[in-house]
């Protein structure tokens, strides 16, 4: 076909467009709606006499009211967390018992029976298997509780109301109101939250949402927060209040994360991602009672298992690395010990120590293995009793035993607080980094989104450490 005739059509369309002017879209849309209104008046009848009590609206009035809106939001967040923390304890220890206390020794003796060389046995079973087992034991139960609860809220229609309530804060920080939705998704998993940013049309605001999603404390980090808060912060309070205090500490960190999210969004929108807020409109859909079992089923299949699988894929090599650095020696020190000692000075400045920093480097693939790695490395460098051998991750059965190991490693309340802060403010896990790259298709922004939180973490922990030391 000849291009000439098409050019003629295009020219004609340009000409006509200039003739009919700016209002084309307005007129067309108005025309369509006029048609729609005609059709509806022919076909739809609403029986106004039986006007029902609008339950939707009554719920909305309460959850968006000045008095109750925010308290309800925090209450729901606290309830979900509380149920996750309490509910995950039992299956977690059950899984740990099964995978670590039963299957691990069985594998070891099996390896011995076929006289596997010690390095292969260590690499595969103490390295790869243990890392994967840890991720499953620590991550699966809270996710299996958190995701379905979250999905129920989502299906019910509560999330748009959260976005509605919080929008003014987002507007003031130069971000899009729908970032509230992606932020809450991030509490489950940052990678999922980042995929969800596709609902934001404007590229600038979407980028802000992607970069700041890491400040939503994700599932891999909740256990760290909870454990450290229980051991160190709860212990400071009288025993009657200790669990309440530790819950508040964890919620405090989550809220602090939101504060950092707003602050960073604001700073970004004032500097590198400058530009005014583009438009925001949000449909508040009617509430729909979720179909309970179906929802639980789909959220388990759709979210929990997929996220878990990704974590396992990334944790396996991390386990291998942990085992290797603990068992490869330079001179008479293992690579791990050597790195820890060289990081100790910097770690001290931040109120942390070399062990924690190394654990975070090793645990880039999966944040879940931070605590076991820390314990293993602490035992390795302090040489105290209780470990399972070089490069073998373990987690102690009771919080008390864990506390003993950590205190022997020179931990104080400051170390604990800074670890909680650093767990909030550090690079996203490798799954998330990969997702950021896939979504932004920009190495520059991926690097920025990965490095910026660590620098922020360094600054915050540094400041806290110095001020703490001046005061106490």
């Amino acid at each position: 076909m000849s291009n000439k005739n098409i050019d003629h059509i295009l020219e004609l369309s340009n000409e006509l467009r200039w003739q009919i002017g700016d209002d084309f879209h307005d007129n067309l849309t108005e025309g369509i709606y006029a048609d729609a209104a005609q059709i509806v008046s022919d076909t739809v009848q609403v029986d106004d006499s039986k006007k029902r009590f609008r339950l939707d609206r009554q719920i909305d009035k309460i959850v968006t009211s000045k008095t109750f809106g925010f308290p309800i939001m925090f209450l729901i967040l606290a309830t979900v967390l509380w149920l996750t923390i309490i509910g995950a304890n039992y299956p977690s220890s059950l899984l740990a018992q099964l995978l670590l206390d039963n299957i691990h020794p069985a594998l070891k003796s099996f390896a011995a029976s076929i006289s596997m060389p010690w390095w292969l046995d260590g690499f595969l079973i103490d390295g790869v298997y243990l890392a994967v087992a840890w991720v499953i034991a620590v991550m699966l139960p809270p996710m299996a509780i958190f995701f379905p609860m979250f999905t129920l809220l989502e299906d019910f229609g509560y999330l748009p109301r959260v976005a509605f309530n919080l929008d003014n804060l987002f507007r003031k920080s130069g971000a899009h109101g729908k970032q509230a939705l992606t932020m809450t998704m991030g509490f489950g998993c940052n990678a999922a939250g980042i995929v969800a940013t596709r609902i934001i049309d404007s590229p600038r605001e979407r980028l802000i949402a992607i970069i700041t999603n890491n400040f939503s404390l994700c599932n891999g980090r909740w256990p760290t927060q909870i454990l450290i808060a229980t051991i160190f912060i709860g212990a400071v309070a009288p025993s009657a209040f200790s669990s309440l205090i530790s819950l508040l500490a964890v919620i405090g960190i989550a809220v602090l994360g939101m504060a950092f999210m707003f602050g960073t969004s604001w700073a970004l929108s004032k500097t590198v991602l400058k530009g005014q807020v583009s438009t925001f409109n949000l449909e508040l859909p009617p509430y729909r009672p979720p179909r309970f079992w179906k929802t639980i089923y789909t959220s388990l299949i759709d979210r929990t298992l997929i996220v878990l699988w990704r974590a396992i894929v990334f944790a396996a090599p991390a386990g291998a690395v942990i085992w290797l650095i603990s068992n490869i020696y330079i001179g008479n020190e293992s690579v791990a010990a050597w790195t820890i000692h060289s990081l100790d000075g910097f770690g001290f400045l931040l109120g942390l120590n070399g062990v924690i920093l190394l654990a975070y480097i090793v645990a880039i693939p999966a944040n879940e293995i931070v605590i076991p790695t820390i314990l293993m490395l602490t035992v390795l460098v302090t040489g105290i009793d209780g470990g399972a051998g070089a490069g073998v991750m373990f987690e102690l059965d009771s919080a008390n035993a864990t506390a003993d190991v950590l205190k022997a490693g020179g931990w104080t309340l400051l170390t604990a607080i800074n670890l909680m802060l650093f767990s909030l403010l550090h690079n996203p896990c490798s799954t998330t980094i990969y997702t950021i790259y896939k979504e932004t298709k920009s190495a520059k922004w991926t690097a920025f989104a990965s490095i910026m939180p660590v620098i922020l973490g360094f600054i915050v922990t540094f400041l806290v450490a110095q001020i703490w030391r001046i005061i106490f």
Partner: protein
Amino acid sequence: MDTKVKSACETCAHFNADGLKKLGISTENVDFVIALAGNPNTGKSTVFNSLTGLRQHTGNWPGKTVTRAEGGFEYNKQKFKLVDLPGTYSLLSTSEDEAAARDFILFGKPDVTVIVADANRLERNLNLVLQILEITDKAVLCLNLMDEAKRNHIMIDERTLARDLGIPVVPTSARFGQGIPELIHTISEIANGNIVCKPHRIKNVPSNIENAVKTLSSEIEKEFPNVPNSRWIAFRLLEGDTRIINALKSGELV
């Protein structure tokens, strides 16, 4: 009442319940491609799930279907592939999700387009329905959430609606699986050409625009006599849609 209709049709001669097989995600060698379009929050994903037997997540917030989902079913030995398009309010804007939905209906040339509409908000939903009817004439309106409409005392005269729109209208409550057999049957009838649609064309357009559209679409028809939707192409050209311009240049539309 809905349940009665369901059981009536499942036993009736038209619907062949044994001929139905939900194929999940295996969609190879399909006979027909079906597009699933609709406003956000109309239960589109639920309709998708009940047609395919898949369990795609159905959150209750606008725009939660961020990736395009595909699934399939088999009915009377014919395989249907179902493509769930992102939920949109319109096809006239340039946002990513709308472009994706628009391009699929226009360039993907689905054999049938199922438009899912919320029976409680028909007027708002018709905005999208009327636009889709400008693009394709093989469509069926799936009037979903009938259970909610009933609770809200909203009565819809489906036959008049079908006559006004010129396409079949199937009332459903996808959450409870009601009306899905009829929907499947109707899809199959349209795909096989047993039902021929005469879709509504937008009428209330100001005369200066109508004239421009007429001039332009008759030129388009001269050049591409086989294009079924010259009016829509004219709309898009007046809007300055570069995708359409390129498609005209490359001959992709014909």
